[in-house]
C-alpha cells in the first residue's frame, strides 16, 4: 500500500479567514481520538472530485497535543489544478473525508537553543503547531512573518495578541521587508532557522544563511509544491506492462494511480523522496520540479519524481 495510514474524519467546522484562506476542522468519524503529532507535520487530504481522486498535503496547524480535532488552512489557488478550489467550493460541514496519519518532514530540531521562524503567506501554518508545541515546553522562539497585506494576513491578530514579543509582521504592500542579514547576524549560538513560504523566499533564506556561514544542518525548510498542469504525454510502465496517458490536469503519479498501478508516495509535493522512479529509456525533456533530486540527478535523465515532475517528448519508459 502507498502513503501513510488513513483516518476517516468528518468536517466539523469551516471558517473563512479572508479572501483567499479558509480553515477546516476535522474530527474522527468514529468519535475516537486522533493521534498526537509533532509540530511541522502534514496530513494528506483525499478529495473525491467526480471521477478524480485528489490527494493534497496540508500542514496541521492545531495544537499537536489536542487529540480531539485537527485543523488545516487552505489557500485558494485559482490557477492550480483544483484541489484547493474543491476544498473551498465543494466541502461542507458534516462531510465525511479521509485523511492520512500525520507525517513530519519539517520537524523541530529539539537540540536548538532558539528556533527562528520565517514565514511567507500560507507558509505560516506549520509554525502555528510548532509554536504551540514549544510554548508547552517553554521553548525559545521568534517569528518573522511576511504577508501581502493586512487584509490577507492570516492569524496575524492571534499571533500578535498572544505573543507580542516573539512575533514580527511585515506587509509587502507597505514595503516592509525582513532585514535578513542583520536578523541572522544577531542570533545567539545554537539557533536554528526554519523557513516556509514561496520558493523565492526559501531560496533567499537558504542562500543568505549559507553566505553568512550558517551550517546547513541549522537551516530547515519546507515547501509543498502543488503539481502543475502541463502538456499531456505518454508513458510506458515496464513492470506493469502498460502504456498510460497523462492528461493536462493530472500528475504522472495520479495517472498511474488512475490506471491501478500501486506507486509509492508520501508527501505528493516533491519533498519526501518516496515516489522516486527509475527512468529506463527516454527521448525528450524532463520538467523536474521536485526538491528531492539534486541538479546532477536531474540532468542525468535517470530518475523522476512522478508526484510533481512531467515530461515532454516522444518516449518515456519507467521502471514501475
Amino acid at each position: 500500500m502507498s502513503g501513510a495510514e488513513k483516518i476517516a474524519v468528518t468536517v466539523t467546522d469551516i471558517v473563512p479567514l479572508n479572501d483567499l484562506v479558509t480553515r477546516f476542522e476535522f474530527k474522527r468519524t468514529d468519535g475516537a481520538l486522533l493521534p498526537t503529532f509533532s509540530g511541522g507535520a502534514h496530513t494528506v487530504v483525499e478529495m473525491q472530485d467526480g471521477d478524480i481522486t485528489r490527494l493534497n498535503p496540508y500542514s496541521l496547524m492545531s495544537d499537536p497535543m489536542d487529540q480531539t480535532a485537527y485543523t488545516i488552512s487552505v489557500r485558494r489557488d485559482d490557477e492550480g489544478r483544483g484541489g484547493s478550489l474543491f476544498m473551498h467550493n465543494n466541502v461542507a460541514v458534516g462531510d465525511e473525508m479521509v485523511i492520512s496519519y500525520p507525517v513530519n518532514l519539517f520537524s523541530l530540531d529539539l537540540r536548538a537553543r532558539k528556533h527562528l521562524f520565517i514565514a511567507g503567506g500560507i507558509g505560516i501554518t506549520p509554525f502555528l503547531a510548532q509554536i504551540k508545541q514549544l510554548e508547552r515546553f517553554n521553548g525559545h522562539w521568534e517569528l518573522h512573518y511576511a504577508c501581502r497585506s493586512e487584509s490577507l494576513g492570516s492569524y496575524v491578530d492571534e499571533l500578535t495578541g498572544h505573543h507580542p514579543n516573539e512575533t514580527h509582521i511585515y506587509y509587502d504592500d507597505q514595503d516592509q521587508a525582513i532585514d535578513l542579514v542583520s536578523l541572522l547576524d544577531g542570533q545567539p549560538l545554537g539557533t536554528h532557522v526554519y523557513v516556509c513560504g514561496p520558493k523565492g523566499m526559501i531560496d533567499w533564506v537558504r542562500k543568505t544563511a549559507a553566505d553568512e556561514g550558517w551550517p546547513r544542518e541549522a537551516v530547515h525548510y519546507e515547501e509543498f509544491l502543488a503539481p502543475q498542469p502541463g502538456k499531456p504525454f505518454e508513458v510506458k510502465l515496464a513492470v506493469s506492462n502498460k502504456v498510460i496517458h497523462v492528461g493536462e490536469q493530472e500528475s504522472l503519479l495520479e495517472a498511474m494511480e488512475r490506471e491501478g498501478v500501486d506507486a509509492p508516495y508520501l508527501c505528493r509535493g516533491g519533498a519526501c523522496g518516496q515516489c522516486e522512479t527509475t527512468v529506463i529509456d527516454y527521448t525528450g525533456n524532463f520538467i523536474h520540479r521536485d526538491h528531492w533530486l539534486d541538479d546532477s540527478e536531474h540532468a542525468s535523465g535517470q530518475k523522476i519524481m512522478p508526484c510533481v515532475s512531467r515530461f515532454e517528448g516522444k518516449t518515456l519508459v519507467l521502471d514501475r
Partner: protein
Amino acid sequence: MTIQFNDETFRDDYSFYNSERAIKRFPFPFHEDSYMYSVNMEQHRGGPADSVYEKRFDVDEHYVAEMRDRAMVLADDPLRCQSLPHMTLAGWDLLELIMVSKSEDYPDLFELHRDGNNWRWINKPLGIDDSFVFLDETTLPYGPMEYITRQAQGDFCVLDQRDDNLWMDAGMVTTQADWSLDFDIGMNFFEWHAPVPLAHEKGIFVRALKFLLNIQQGAPARRLNWTMTVNPLLDTSPENYHKWGIQKTTLTPENIGAKQHLRVELQTFFRLPRSNALVFPIRCYLCSFQDIMTVPKWGRRLHRVIRDLPEELATYKGFIDNRPMMLDYLKNFDDGQPTSAGIWPDLETEPSLAK
C-alpha cells in the same frame, strides 16, 4: 492467556530455560537454507496467534527474570542507560507507546488509567502501582525512558531524526550482542554500523536508512537479526567482554548442545508522535542448540546455514573458532532431506529425522 514466569538467571548458575511453548514460538531467523545480509524488513502488524510477532511488545515467561537481570546490570554500570537532553520528549513518547500497547495487549498483566495528564500505571508481574503526571519528570523515580524500559524486555535505542539521518541520542542497552551504547551515543546510522562487514559494499545500509527515515506513525516495521552466545547470557557487552569472552573456550563436544545458544533479535521500528524520533526495540531470544534440535526442520537448516556462512560473518559474529565443533554437533541433525520455505517449525508437515 496467563503466563507462568520462570524463576531463572542469566549469569552465575545460568538456570535460564525455555518451556516447550517457548521453544515452539522461538523466532528461528532463517527462512531458507542459507543466510546473507539483506534489507529484510516487513510491516509489524501482528502475526500468527502466540507467535512473537503477535503483539506490539511481546511479553513471555522470561519477563520477570530479564527485568531483574537488567536492574543488576544498571546497578553495576549506570552508563548502560543514557539520554541526551533533547530526547526527553521522545522518552515520554516511548513510555506512552509501551504503556498503551501493553495494557491493551495484556489487560490481565498491565493496566493504564488516564485522566488528562494524571496517569496510573499498574504492572502486576513486577508489583508496581505508580501514579504520576504525564510530561512531568519530577513525578517519576527515573526519567521516562529509563522508567519504562526497566519494565520492558529487550534493549531500546531512541533515534533522533534530523539532517536525513538517524542519531543514537538515547537508549537502554543491557542485553546487547557486543556493542556499547556509551561508545555509540551521538553517532549516526553509518557511524554506528561501521564495524559490520560486507553490508556497506552491498548498499544495504543506504537502502535501510531510506526505509527507516520514512517509517510513519501507525505503521511500524520489523526485522530479525541473529548471532551466537555460549551460555544463556543477556549481557554480552564489550564492557564485560573480560567476563564472557573467555566462556567461549569452555565449549566441549559433550556440553555444546546445552551451552551453545542461538541468539535472535526481534528488531522493531516505531515512529514516535510528539518528538518525531524513531524507537528501535531490540528484543533478544535465546535458545540452546539441543532445544532447537527438537524441531527437525530447524535442525537440518541450522546445520546448512552455519556450514555455508561466509567467513567474514562468522568472524564478526564471534564464533569462527567454535564453528568446526558446532558443525560436528549439528551434522547429526541433518539427514539431507529438503526443508520447507519460511521460518515456522511446520512440526505437523516436516518429516522427522531419518536415522
